[in-house]
């Protein structure tokens, strides 16, 4: 039996309802959600401990913003892919996310769709 091509994913969002639904979606696609974080601090802590290969990061966090977190995550000495999400679909977020080093930005309403699924699965 082949090992699944799934990612080890850290989900970062302060909204637990959303985290639940995101975890369900990711797992349904065969990814392993290794951790969940509700703040920038928790996210950094769990990243160091769990070494996920992918992080799904909400922009609005209680102790900082997702762009900042993205910059810090991609600066770590091992490869880590970041997908930025927000309930605000503003396209400006896409540009800022890219500049911060994320591989993409997705409105939260779209994370069940094929675009997000493809971006998550893509190898670099």
């Amino acid at each position, binding site marked *: 039996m082949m090992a699944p091509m799934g990612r080890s994913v850290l989900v970062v969002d302060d*909204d637990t*309802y*959303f985290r639940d*639904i995101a975890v*369900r*979606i990711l797992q349904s696609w065969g990814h392993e959600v290794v951790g969940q974080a509700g703040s920038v601090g928790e996210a950094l802590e769990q990243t160091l401990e769990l070494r996920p290969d992918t992080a799904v990061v909400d*922009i*609005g966090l209680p102790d900082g*913003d997702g*762009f900042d977190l993205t910059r810090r995550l991609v600066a770590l000495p091992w490869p880590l892919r970041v997908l930025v999400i*927000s*309930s*605000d*679909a*503003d*396209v*400006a*977020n896409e*540009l*800022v996310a890219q500049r911060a080093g994320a591989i993409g930005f997705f*409105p*939260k*309403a779209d*994370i*069940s*769709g094929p675009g997000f699924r493809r971006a998550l699965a893509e190898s670099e």
Partner: protein
Amino acid sequence: MSTEREAGGREADAAELARLVEQEAALRRLAELAARGAERQEVFDAIVVEASRLLGPSLMTLVQIDPGGTATFVALRGSTTGYASGTRLAADGGGVFERVLHSGKPARVDYADLSGFRAEQAIQRGFSGAVGAPIHVNGRLWGALVASAREEPLPLSLDTRLATFAELLGPAIAGALARAELLDLLDEQAALRRVAELVARGCSQQELFQAVADEASRLVDGEGTTLLRLAPDRRGGLVLATSGAAAVPVGTELTIPDDDEGIVAAIIRNRAPARVDNYPDVQGTSYARDDWGIASAAGVPIILDDELWGLLAASTWDHPLPKGVEQRLQQFAELTGAALANSAARAEVEALATEQAALRRVAELVARAAKPEDVFAAIAREAAQLLAEPMMLVRIDDSDTLVVVASVNGPSDPGWSIAMSSDTLAAEVVRTGRAARKDEDAGEEAPRFAERPGASLSAVAAPITIGGRIWGMLAASSAEHMLPAGTEERLGQFAELIAVAIANAESRAALSASRARVLATADEVRRRIQRDVHDGAQQRLVHTVLTLKLAREALLDVGGPAAALVDESLEQAQRAVNEMSDIVRGILPAALTRGGLRAGVESLVVDLPLDIDLRVECDRLSLDLETTAYFVAAESLTNVVKHAHADRASVSIRVEGGHLGVEVADEGVGGAQRTGGTGITGLFDRIDAAGGTLTVTSPPGEGTTVCATLPLDGAVAS
């Protein structure tokens, strides 16, 4: 015998006649000379020439003697050996002209029989004796004609002949003198006129002083002249101007002791002309002799507004001054007084004009809505310039503490807080509400503007009263010299004028600050609404959309009315999400607060039906500044869409030299006006409150450029 005697008598008669003829011819030549209007000196020179020819001694001297006892050699002819025309001698040496002076009659001396230094001098110079005869002019003894012998004996007949000739000289000399007097008078008038013209042309006071000293010196035969301004306490003065061989340099500050015996002390005491012919004879102290080695001086008071303002004096190093110097100086003193009154009036007008100009500059600054700090700095600068003294502008805060708000070379720097204790100058100003002065007094502690080290020698402070309350004060101080008299008045006047400007600047700043606060509050409310909506309703709706999507997927195989209802719910929810996003973004885009100015403007331009060239060169700035800049871009781009009929625009945002510049340009129809729409007016308000500037360039047909410059250090004082 009788024939011989007769022959002898005839010879003598013939010789006498010949002498009389010669004498008559000599007198006629002199009279003609005088009648031709010859100079006085020319007549004097001719007199000794004629007398020598007539009487034939080794040396013929014409001496003018004034009743004060000074003899002046006005003309010499023959073997002079050391004596020169213009030599002045005190008539106390027991010589021949002293005898003539004392007796008013002809005199003869044989130096060998005489003692006294004049005789010794004469012998040293090789003279054996002299005969002198008085010359009377207009009934008064004017001088003497002196014939001196070296080797030749002085014939006895010489006395009579000399006396006769001298007697006849009176009218010629009187004529020459009258004319000379007239010329002198003309000279004097011309000199006075030159000075008066200078005054009329509006010369500076220093020019006037120099002209007075120069012209006075010229009129007193080039003797040194000094114009002295007396100190208010009359214990000394300042040398304002000198001319000729004046003793004391310009700028010297003299201190005159109470017991001084010189002319300055005498003029101060009596307000009348004074003269000292021979300072070495003065008993007691005399600064003129002791400090400056002056031999002789005469001076007159200069009265201005019935006050003793100063004095004009002439002085010499070695000889007595001629008589009449005071009279000549007096005319100049009077003219100087009048000119000063005139020029004091003009100086007042000039000072007023200077003050007005300074005030205007400050007012313009206020009108341009400069920051209060800048207005304060300008006020201190202008006041310092007006008075040419170090200056501080000090505000009194709520707890009665003095806060230095601006300083030009003052003892304290801006920002210093100083406690105001009761014995200080500041406290006196607050207590009296008037300008006050503190000067260092001997034996007393140096004056303090306030409770702070770094004392000044002299300080003046004037209150700035706004709305009946003392807002603060202007304080001039010097560590080097006493502030001049009248500083209180000038500073007080300027402080009064400037109060309105300060009140204006402060109320404007208060207005700006309150407007800035209102805008900042509004922006904060915007951000909060945006955050609340984003974190709350929007989040829930997005969650709903996502759940509905999952439900739709789960129902994929089922179909039927349930799937259709889920589809409809999803569509409605999706629309609600979009509409809410638009509303929130209209209030303030989340991208701005979260991602900064660049993200904010990017989120703005994406939805606009324009091709936009966007350049943003700045990092994160303060939220207020980012919000203001965002609104500049948003309002300007909205106007491009609404009014410009353009299909492209450019936005450039960059930090440069402490400012954030925002420029939005299009190539549309132009002709935009500041008052055209509420949007641009709102922008002006917003930028004004932020302490920035906004320019709109919009010539018809040539597009519109909106350019905002915002200080990085935020809004005006809050």
